[in-house]
């Protein structure tokens, strides 16, 4: 068991990191910390992909000259380019999601003066209770 963990230490680190990220995203009440959690989780996935995509002794998937003016075309010399492509796409997605989440957080702070989503909810339910009380009063008026 321990041997397997040591052999796959990159993957083990990725799993631990993504666990930390997911827990932060779910359990932190502060939105900024939530967004940091999201980024940790995404980074863990990139580490996993990069670790899986790397084969020892092989070159990056960019054509290498073979010394006599040509290129080495054999696929066995290079690592698989797809994981790197996936990581790049993932980074783009994660950046845009982070930017959007931060923008919304800013808006929330402007409206409620807090970064804590529970506190915002509390202020919100207080407002809602007022509204509901008004609705009930109106209803009684109609019935009477």
């Amino acid at each position, binding site marked *: 068991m321990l041997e397997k963990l040591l052999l796959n230490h990159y993957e083990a680190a990725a799993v631990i990191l993504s666990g930390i990220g997911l827990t932060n995203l779910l359990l932190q009440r502060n939105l900024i910390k939530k967004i940091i959690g999201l980024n940790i989780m995404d980074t863990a996935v990139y580490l996993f992909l990069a670790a899986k995509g790397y084969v020892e002794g092989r070159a990056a998937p960019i054509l290498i000259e073979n010394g006599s003016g040509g290129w080495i075309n054999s696929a066995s010399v290079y690592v698989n380019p797809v994981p790197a492509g996936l990581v790049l796409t993932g980074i783009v997605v994660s950046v845009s999601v982070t930017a959007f989440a931060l923008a919304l957080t800013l808006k929330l702070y402007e*409206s409620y003066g807090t970064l804590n989503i529970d506190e*915002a909810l509390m202020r919100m339910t207080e407002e809602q209770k007022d509204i509901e009380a008004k*609705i009930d009063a109106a209803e009684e008026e*109609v019935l009477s």
Partner: protein
Amino acid sequence: MIGMLAYNIPFVSIFVMMICAIITPLLPNRNRIPEKLSCLAISFVGLMSAYLLYELTAGGQTHSFNFAMGHFPAPWGNELRAGPLEAVLSLVFCVAMLLSLTGNFSSTAEDIAPKRRNIFCVLVNLLTASLLALTYTNDLFTAYVFIEINTIAACAIVAVKESAETVRAALRYLVMSLVGSGLVMIAICLLYDLTGHLLMQNMHRAIGELVATKRYMMPLTVSLALITAGLAIKSALYPFASWLPDAHGSSTNASSAILSGLVLKGHIFTIIKIFYRVFGLEVIHLLRMDTVIFILGITAMIMGSVHALRQKNVKRMIAWSSVAQVGYIFMGVGLNTVAGIAAACLHIIVHACVKPMLFTAAGGLSNAAGHKKGLHALMGTFYVNVWAGLGLIAGACSMMGIPGFAGFASKLSLTLASFDHSTVIWALTALATSSVLNALYYVPAVIVVLTHNKDAQKNFTAHSPTLSYKVSMFVFLALNFYLGLFCVPLLRLITRGVNVL
């Protein structure tokens, strides 16, 4: 064989919507030109999907094809795939999207500031593009990218109505969605690691080999569980649905209609594709995921309705009812048979037509009552806005499963599909209970709307519904009756589509 024109339709549909999303912010912001352009583009894509459907089913044969994106052949390159099921779903998505926009044309103008309206159009176009891409894609990582595009657009469409409530709802929706898409991404990376492929049919072959030799069963189970949980959060399956009523209840009417009717469905169809095309029904059964989905589905059917019973706000009530309806779809998927999945797809179509109608109707009624959303404030509004009243009544009948309305057709096919299954008694009990619960909250709403109320009617804003509202509501009602009365050919078409999926 398929003509060259039809062959390019899946790609062109996505591309048109993407281009449209890019050019709408550049358009002049007067006379609502961006919205009209979006409607035009969506109807164009809808027409193309109808033509594709015709080509794929012409002459009683069922065709399907893979469209290679770029110049790399199958195991490496990216692919789209189209069959009758994909074509019919994208047609329905376009029609429902168009009707949600035109039906709520005037309420959108009231809720969204003029300078933001072309941003709203960008989001609508992006949502349509991502829904089409989720429907057509054959590549799991492309699916992930479009799931994220869908997430951003769906959260932004909630927040575009600027109020403290919608911002909070959008943030809550965003956080839950990000948890979901994070799980999906981890699962896709695990699956890529296990199978070495991203295209669905190649993954299916590799997973078949792994299962036959009993290797890597644990990682396979984990990745299936993660991807199902991730997509279940995004499609609001019951225990993960706490974000839905806030997001759908507080946003502007057009957004609520689009989110409830369409956005959830894109993710559910992705689950169906992953179950059916990537893992295969036998492997799903072997890993017990069908039972989990079935149990969660029937729980959602009951609990969604129980929550809806307690709502005083009409839009939140309809939003909770969506949770129950998503439960029906997942129950069909959980049956894990071709008939079950076909019934689930029929329910996707029915709900995509009925729920936007209900939200449009509720919007019209609360507009008539002077922008009040409380259920009791709507007393007697039927007589102010008859079209909205008719929409609410037809939608309620459909949700309860009254024969002749759309909901009846899909509930009947779900019932028939469950007879082939060992858990038939549970399915039937849940269907019956849920229908009664649906009636318990929809019937009072209809009665309230129909009750004459002279005192309150003085306060009503006496503007008649616009032409676009009337026309959209008429088309919604016609679709509702069409689906209720003539669903057999549609179900046969869906079954053919599922068979070649």
